[in-house]
């Protein structure tokens, strides 16, 4: 393994105890990072330190522990906001994950702003979490949804995108990086075109924020949603970045404690931003865990993280393309893809493939990857996906190749 061009992968691997685990007597080769990533010691320690040293309900008590917890929570928000280039503290809202972030946009912004016959534009490469909330919103309001398709090499059909933008959509929601095709969309360009047409822009950053430098100022999006657990952080914590102007025109999402300023029998007034959108006792362990994850990634450098993934994906694409009977989906060049490689091999169904790879210790994902419209548009029942991260090595790609060879032997391909 040693040093790839950019990252010291050996020392990175040493920070992830789980990577030493054996699976079915074989070395674990964890290639399911687009589903969730493993956690470095520093993240686990941040969580245990919180519980061992300063656990309390933030924003409520006046006692020392509560003040510590409040400070840690707010400091986490500041650090995470800085990581994505947020302009202000209140633009960073804690959620349970990207799914809740997108639902927050649906209820907070969508419900008061989307009207009958409005147009909502999505893309065919979206994860279900960036489709279903808009379908429900459209059904509620009598709005209409159009999907932008893809070209043969798995890139967004820009001609169709521009055509739809000419129809002045109210809302445009798209992924930064496809969790199946790996396609990296030119968010800056898409946001700029959408903005000119007067649309509000929602970016699903679940597969990009963990893997490449992301700057919301540069992208110029209105909303950006992502999850902590896909970027070395804990599960159950995520972020919604919301541009300040948008925040001001949003209604509360969930309601109850902490999101109010005053409550009387006659009604209630709302807390300041961003607390207006954070009802109930917050996930402090998640916030400090995610902060530790962000600090870990910053210590590696996001440029280098991206470079490492490009190297691994390039190597995997080169090796895999040579396998007879294989179909790889998405752009051909590693420079145009995120850290995922989805494929089918002969008539081996993805689930059979994943079972066989698992026997060899290789953990991959199989199925429709929560992107059924995309899988249907590709005309396949399912796909197998290998997805990479900072701790993966070329040797692990070789282990994947050996496991693929075994699958071919079993299925006589």
């Amino acid at each position, binding site marked *: 393994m040693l040093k790839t061009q950019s990252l010291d992968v050996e020392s990175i691997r040493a920070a992830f105890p789980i990577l030493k685990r054996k699976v079915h007597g074989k070395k674990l080769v964890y290639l399911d990072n687009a589903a969730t990533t493993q956690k470095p010691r520093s993240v686990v320690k941040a969580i245990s330190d919180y519980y061992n040293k300063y656990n309390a309900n933030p924003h409520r008590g006046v006692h020392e522990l509560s003040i510590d917890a409040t400070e840690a929570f707010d400091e986490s928000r500041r650090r995470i906001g800085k990581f994505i280039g947020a302009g202000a503290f209140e633009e960073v809202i804690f959620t349970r994950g990207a799914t809740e972030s997108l639902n927050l946009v649906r209820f907070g912004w969508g419900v008061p702003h989307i009207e009958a016959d409005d147009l909502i534009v999505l893309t065919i490469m979206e994860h279900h979490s960036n489709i279903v909330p808009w379908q429900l919103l459209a059904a509620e309001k009598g709005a209409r949804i159009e999907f932008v398709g893809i070209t043969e090499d798995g890139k967004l059909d820009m001609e169709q995108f521009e055509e739809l933008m000419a129809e002045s959509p109210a809302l445009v929601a798209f992924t930064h990086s496809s969790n199946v095709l790996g396609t990296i969309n030119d968010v800056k360009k898409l946001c700029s075109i959408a903005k000119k047409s007067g649309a509000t822009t929602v970016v699903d950053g679940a597969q990009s924020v963990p893997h490449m430098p992301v700057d919301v100022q540069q992208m110029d999006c209105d909303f950006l949603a992502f999850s902590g657990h896909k970027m070395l952080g804990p599960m159950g914590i995520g972020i919604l970045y919301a541009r300040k102007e948008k925040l001001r025109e949003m209604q509360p999402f969930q309601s109850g404690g902490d999101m109010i300023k005053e409550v009387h029998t006659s009604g209630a007034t709302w807390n300041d931003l961003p607390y207006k959108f954070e009802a109930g006792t917050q996930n402090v362990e998640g916030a400090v865990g995610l902060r530790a994850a962000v600090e870990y990634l910053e210590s590696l450098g996001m440029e280098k993280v991206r470079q490492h993934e490009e190297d691994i994906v390039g190597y995997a694409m080169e090796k895999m393309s040579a396998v007879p009977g294989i179909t790889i989906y998405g752009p051909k060049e590693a420079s145009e893809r995120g850290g995922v490689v989805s494929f089918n091999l002969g*008539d081996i*169904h993805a689930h059979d493939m994943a079972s066989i790879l698992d026997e060899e210790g290789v953990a991959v994902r199989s199925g429709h990857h929560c992107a059924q419209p995309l899988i249907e548009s590709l005309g396949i029942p399912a796909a197998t996906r290998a997805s990479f991260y900072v701790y993966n090595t070329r040797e692990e790609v070789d282990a994947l190749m050996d496991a693929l060879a075994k699958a071919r032997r079993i299925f006589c391909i």
Partner: protein
Amino acid sequence: MSSSDIYRELILDYYRNPRNFGKLDPHDIDAKDSNPLCGDEVEIQIKVSPDNKIEDIRFFGKGCAISQASASMLTELAKGKPLEWTKELSKQDILKMLGTSDLGPARIKCALLSMKVLKTGVYGYLGTTLPESADH
């Protein structure tokens, strides 16, 4: 149970050359279901004889080798049997039919999908409710 064990020639043969594959017209029973995790789909159609036996049966679907081979083998097993027979059908019978003792929690649903569809269809036809646990 290792995957190399389950993917024996027999299973692959049924996957690639499924018996009783297709639609059945006319039919008396038509039931289908899918497995949301895998996207496996199985539809079963049955022609019932006057003495309530499975006179003819076909299946239609798509999915992994285990789900499709299991469906095909089950149609062979069910042909000619009284409808009542399907009520007694259990997870153990399906595992035995596939020639394995266990499949693990991730894949057992693939194997049992066709049994669930068969039972749903037969119970519906007989006008009775399917018991909560289909793999009793």
